[in-house]
């Protein structure tokens, strides 16, 4: 069953059309990777799913995007509920300049949870699931900006998991990390897909091949092809996809 489904999705930044008739389905408890050359609209598409494009002036959308069958475009959408359900990890780790603890419980606090015991329990659970708990449990009061980049990115993932989203969107989450840290974050993602559905944008084709179940290739605002990763990489149906993955382009 697909957890996100778009139908003839179009998006314009002012007069520039950045997404053209995108039809995409994200399967539950799978990792869906979006690949494609720079500027093809991967981030734009990702940001549609939690309506982060609303922050940008002059963005116009047409078509349909459904999360668990419910339409999320249109003015009536409860953005707070949507963003609780569809969380996002950014390219550059962006922990708040607060303590580690406050970062993890941030979303719980804004969603009205005050009970200290509940917060503590959620913090431990979230940090454990990103494998930071043992490292940091004695140091939760430290400023999050003092952590290493990898730890910061893990913290950002933990911060998200604390509100138990259904979908985790990741926009090149490893692009600022070294290969070792990248590998560990990839392991974490494979672990996380048991409980969450993940959409990841990546520039790194090997990464897409390693971790994703499904893979979509985008070019100039179009979703050229979407399918099982193995098939995309061994038997692409579209010539443009083949050119890209064989390195003839991009």
């Amino acid at each position, binding site marked *: 069953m697909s957890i996100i489904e778009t139908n003839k999705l179009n998006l314009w930044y002012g007069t520039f059309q950045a997404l053209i008739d995108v039809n995409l389905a994200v399967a539950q408890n799978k990792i869906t990777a979006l690949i494609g050359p720079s500027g093809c609209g991967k981030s734009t598409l990702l940001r549609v799913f939690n309506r982060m494009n609303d922050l940008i002036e002059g963005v116009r959308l047409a078509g349909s995007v459904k999360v668990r069958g419910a339409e999320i475009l249109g003015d009536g959408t409860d953005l707070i509920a949507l963003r609780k359900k569809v969380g996002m990890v950014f390219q550059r780790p962006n922990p*708040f300049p607060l303590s580690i603890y406050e970062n993890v419980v941030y979303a719980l606090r804004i969603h009205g949870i005050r009970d200290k015991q509940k917060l503590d329990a959620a913090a431990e659970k979230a940090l454990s699931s990103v494998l930071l708990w043992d490292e940091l449990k004695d140091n939760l009061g430290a400023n999050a900006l003092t952590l290493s980049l990898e730890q910061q990115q893990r913290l950002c993932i933990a911060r998200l998991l604390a509100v138990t989203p259904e979908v985790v969107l990741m926009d090149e989450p490893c692009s600022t990390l070294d290969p070792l840290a990248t590998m560990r974050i990839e392991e974490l993602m494979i672990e996380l897909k048991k409980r969450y559905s993940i959409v990841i944008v990546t520039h790194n084709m090997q990464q897409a091949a390693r971790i994703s179940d499904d893979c979509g290739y985008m070019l100039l605002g179009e979703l050229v092809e979407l399918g099982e990763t193995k098939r995309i990489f061994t038997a692409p149906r579209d010539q443009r996809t083949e050119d890209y993955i064989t390195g003839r382009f991009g």
Partner: protein
Amino acid sequence: MRRPFDYIIEKLVFFSGVASILFVILIFVFLLKEGLSLFGEVSIQSFLFNVNWFPISDPPQFGIVPLLLGSLFVTLGAIVIAVPMGLAAAIYISEFAPRWFANILKTGIELLAAIPSIVLGFIGIVTLAPFLKTVFRLPSGLTALAGSIMLAFMAMPTIVSIIEDAIVSNPKSYKEGSLALGATRWQTVYRVTIPAASSGILAAIMLGIGRVIGETMAVLMITGNAAVIPTSFLQPVRTLTATIAAEMGEAVAGSGHYYSLFAIGIILFIISFIINLLADLFLHRSRKGKRKR
């Protein structure tokens, strides 16, 4: 041909640069020399802790406690008014106002900074003082409160623009991260934006205090000018600056009274110096914290 010309220009620029330091040193030396002369006549303790400022009675008493308290009352009042308003204004301008309206507001605040303080003092006398007088049923509206309100107006532009700067220079990723977690704009402001800008906010407060404590003309006109120990904001007070301005003309050169005014100058100098130092420290920290991201 260009060599000697370059040489002259270089030296000129150098001397202009050095002159600024030189002037500061000369002023400070002069201030110290004149101010410290007082302490042959009066002890430092009595200057700092005597509660009576009677410079022309016989024998004269030069206790600056009432003046210090006067400055403290007026400054504290002004900051208590100006900081919350300035913070709110800066948040509105940077986070909520549509761009065209934000620009109008910013221009308005800059204009506020351009009003000469004597004009503010004058307006205060004819509008604010009578208003306070009727509202609180006072014998006179010229009080610490009147001074605080007028000075709050003067400190606002500094406070708003520095806080606004601090907020605008927050990395966009903080705001995005918070909104992406389902926070409202207002939750984002008070849970992330304000804490992230806290060094800038502290610097703004310090510079606001600096602006207020050094102000003379408006406070001279509007605080009622009574060198007594204030117990309430509804009493007239006299600040350190106003005392110098008001009494310099009548003090006999070389007298204790004359030296005591210079000694007050030293106190003001020290206070300003500390405040500027703190402001610098906070500004520095605010910039450094941001560069890391």
